[in-house]
């Protein structure tokens, strides 16, 4: 009896103003961020970056939301807490796997061979670029790391906007074939596995959050988004 009345009290404490704040500072920014994550993950692009090491577009949940309001929101939805923890755990694992894969590729003799073959003056002239345009100011080691991160991210064809596009688009298949080398393949598969698990956790969290949003909107007569309302922003 006591437990029931305390639970009812909690629910009663939530009104349209709180729901609006949750939508604007927790639920919608989180959904926007997760949907971006989903977009990249669907392409097996882990958005891995070397400097500083991290995943550019796959963040811990706290990065998307107002933390105080997240705490308040999750007090009422413990199942969301579990899904968030799973998301963040998978994200950290993917980050670790990307770092391992980066090291394996950047340190491989095969990448060095490709780099030396594809970046001669003649080879670059053939694709209409120069080493200065591509890598001016970088040491050879840094250049290998740059190429390696494009491989880690399974980068697709790049638009002309990107300076590396002529080199990458011409030799992309050969660069990506490094992922199949016996010395690299296990690390690559581990990253793919972590990426797939990450994607599942993102899908699950999106569906859970959408379900909660739907329920809150209908219970409290609050629209998902206010016309001209808060635009998604990063909190870190």
């Amino acid at each position, binding site marked *: 009896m006591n437990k029931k009345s305390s639970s009812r009290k909690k629910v009663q404490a939530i009104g349209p103003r709180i729901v609006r704040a949750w939508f604007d500072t927790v639920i919608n920014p989180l959904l926007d961020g997760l949907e971006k994550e989903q977009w990249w993950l669907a392409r097996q*692009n882990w958005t891995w*970056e070397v400097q500083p090491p991290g995943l*550019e577009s796959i963040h811990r949940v706290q990065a998307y939301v107002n933390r105080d309001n997240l705490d308040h929101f999750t007090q009422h939805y413990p199942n969301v807490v579990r899904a968030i923890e799973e998301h963040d755990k998978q994200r950290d694992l993917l980050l670790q796997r990307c770092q391992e894969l980066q090291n394996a590729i950047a340190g491989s003799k095969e990448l060095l061979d490709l780099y030396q073959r594809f970046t001669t003056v003649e080879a670059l002239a053939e694709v209409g670029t120069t080493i200065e345009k591509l890598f*001016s*100011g970088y040491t050879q080691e840094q250049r290998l790391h740059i190429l390696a991160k494009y491989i880690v991210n399974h*980068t697709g064809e790049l638009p*002309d906007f*990107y*300076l590396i596009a002529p080199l990458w688009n011409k030799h992309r298949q050969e660069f990506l074939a490094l992922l199949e080398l016996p010395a690299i393949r296990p690390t690559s598969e581990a990253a793919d596995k972590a990426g797939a698990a990450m994607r599942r956790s993102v899908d699950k969290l999106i569906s859970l959050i959408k379900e909660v949003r739907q329920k809150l909107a209908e219970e409290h007569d609050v629209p998902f988004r206010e016309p001209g309302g808060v635009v998604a922003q990063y909190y870190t």
Partner: protein
Amino acid sequence: MSIITAVVDTAPLLSALILDYARRNTPARSESILSRSQMADYLKHDQKRQTAFMRFFDGIPVILTTSHVIGELQGLQTLKDEYQRGFWLNAMRWLSTKRLDERLVKLLDLHQEETWRPAVCEVGPPDAGLVTLARQVGCFSEEKPLLTDDRRTLYPLARRQQVYCQIVEDLVL
């Protein structure tokens, strides 16, 4: 006729620095850089125009500007932390390939000149300084333009001073 050298105003220079930084990065980071940056409206969300804009700047061998303009960049760029660090490292690298010629146009030198004293009062030292520099280095033809996106203030002032001034937005369609 191709440009030999150009005097460049703050807004197009800032856009060029942001876009150069973005195009040297992966698509995901590039998206982060662009979404956190302030640049000309006509360049936002239009990758074809961004590419054309950078091709235009790639074709300029030497960029001249004033120290006022360089000083304004930090106040206008909106990147933080690691992004800001990357922005400035890349900016210095790119400007060195453009053989940046940064000139100091002193406020008190402008004060000495009958022509420039009212201009400073009207448009401020950075714009008056740019037009002064453009005149000093002979920006009177297509080969040596003053480049701006400021139709309201700098462009009319430059034209009144017979400086060959062009709006970058009109050049990169």
